[in-house]
């Protein structure tokens, strides 16, 4: 009886590998027509996405994905790391659990609800501030001109909100691995709290925090529905961060329904999905490398589950 159970469970585990392999192969087969018609480099780097004229250069979409994710990281990571630092090092003990739950709660709000909120609240409320910024700092690159309602910046801001809980949760776990002795040594040498953070805590956890940021980046790259609602869905590459744009995930969500009848359009959208998958794969690979290195320093060595919603980080 024991061997059959073992065999069945091994088979079930192997099924995961089969699913992933099947996933990649099917996506590649369906996307191949567009790669063979245009060439992979042309598909990725051509700056023209005009399905009506049968032009499929995905660069505006890839650039949009990278721009929005970069904005999300620039805004989201400092906030997330600060929240993690505050909870682990600075905040009074009774507040700790409440703050952790509240930050984790950000992950419980579905993407479509963030989108709904952004369309009817964030975009109209923040537009005057954006216009002021655009006018005042028009000497900066990629700033200036008329602000569009939906734009790259709004999408980045929304993505920042969505990656804060995951980056913060993983940073918390990484910060918890800093040995108490290092912190006490810094304090004993007369360091203030901030000096302790700067000299003992941050250098020790730098790799882990980079990993957390990369995991956040992976999340931001693939986020679909909220971005679709606030990016403006214009396949023309915008000239400033306040212009309308498009991302890989948004183009799939938006155009796939109508593309079912046009095989080349459909193939190019699947190719966009494949490019997106490869992007997130590379980013997650780098992230895992950093996070596992940080995990190995932890006592016990149990794998840290990525928190999915509130309280997953037990």
């Amino acid at each position, binding site marked *: 009886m024991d061997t059959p159970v073992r065999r069945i469970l*091994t088979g079930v*585990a192997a099924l995961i590998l089969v699913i992933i392999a099947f996933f990649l192969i099917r996506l590649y087969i369906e996307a191949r027509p567009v790669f063979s018609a245009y060439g992979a480099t042309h598909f990725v780097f051509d700056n023209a996405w005009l399905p009506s004229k049968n032009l499929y250069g995905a660069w505006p979409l890839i650039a949009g994905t990278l721009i929005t994710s970069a904005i999300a990281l620039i805004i989201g990571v400092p*906030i997330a790391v600060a929240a993690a630092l505050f909870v682990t090092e600075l905040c009074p003990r009774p507040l700790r659990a409440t703050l952790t739950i509240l930050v984790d709660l*950000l992950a419980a709000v579905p993407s479509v609800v963030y989108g709904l909120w952004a369309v009817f609240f964030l975009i109209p409320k923040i537009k005057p501030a954006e216009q002021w910024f655009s006018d005042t700092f028009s000497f900066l690159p990629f700033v200036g001109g008329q602000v569009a309602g939906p734009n790259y910046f709004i999408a980045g801001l929304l993505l920042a909100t969505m990656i804060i809980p995951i980056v913060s949760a993983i940073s918390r776990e990484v910060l918890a691995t800093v040995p108490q002795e290092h912190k006490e040594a810094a304090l004993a040498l007369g360091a203030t709290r901030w000096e302790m953070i700067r000299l003992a805590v941050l250098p020790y956890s730098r790799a882990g925090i980079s990993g957390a940021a990369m995991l956040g980046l992976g999340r931001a790259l*693939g986020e679909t529905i909220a971005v679709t609602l606030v990016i403006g869905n214009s396949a023309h590459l915008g000239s400033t961060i306040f212009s309308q744009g498009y991302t890989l995930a948004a183009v799939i969500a938006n155009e796939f329904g109508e593309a079912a009848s046009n095989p080349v359009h459909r193939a190019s959208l699947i190719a966009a999905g494949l490019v997106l998958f490869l992007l*997130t794969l590379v980013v997650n690979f780098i992230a895992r490398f950093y996070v596992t290195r940080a995990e190995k320093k932890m006592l016990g060595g149990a794998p840290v589950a990525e928190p999915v919603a509130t309280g997953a980080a037990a």
Partner: protein
Amino acid sequence: MSAPTFNEAGLRGLPPVSPGRVRKDRIARTFIGALTLIALVPLVLVVFYLLKQGLGAWNGDFFTTDPTGRTCFPGQTTCSIGGVRSAILGTLEIVALASVIAIPFGTAVAVYLVEYGKQSKFANTVRYFVDVMTGVPSVAFGLFVYIVLVASGIGGSYAGWKGSVALALLMLPIVVRSSEVVLNLVPNQLRESALALGAPRWKVIWSVVLPTARSGLITGSLLAVARAAGETAPLLFTAFATNELVFGLGQPMNSLPLQIFNDVRTPQDAIVQRAWGAALFLVLLILILNLVARLAQRRSRLA
């Protein structure tokens, strides 16, 4: 909190900390605290607007009618755009089927990894690919299920159960990873005592390991369910969205996230209002799942 300098902390022999360093410390702490508050601003605003706009939509027929009325011309007094009954039913059915697929499958993989595979090369490969799956954008799973199940015409075109498959793919890595953590927490002494009493490995797993880890496994699974319930992208081209009330998973089905997504893009106040109402209901559903998951965790016999 007030910052005790280290001289107050009893180290009277040391020279006082210079005012410049104290100031820098205070500024840095305030800055970190302020950033933490900023992190919570979106949460407060989202919750506030959800309650403000959403509760208004919960009128008499919100839960008892379907969103079939799409147009409401100004001046019409008796027209109704309808509620979200079919969307609620669709979400419940689709997510239930996805859970039935993903939870046993994911738990079985985790049991294999912890009890049989351990640190073998094959087990580590599986672990690695589970991590890869965690990072796959949810829209890519939607595409995959579209290609494999919808475009190939297996059992008709769009159908509720195909949406379930897409959600199950999304839930699977979450279930595997959280279950693996919990199973690793089961003390080895329990396994060893059962084995020493002559129980075969499968029986040890079934009657010792799984019952001990039960509440932890439930927590992980419920969090995966909560995550899946809010996903829109995998359902877009698998379950599709029909407005009518549909009971069978074999046909195209409505769901709450899709209803919200479609309503947001319709420039009509009453329809947007319905989106807020549906969003409030969806968030409450997810919060309840999270709460139950937390309660299960609290009852856990493991640390």
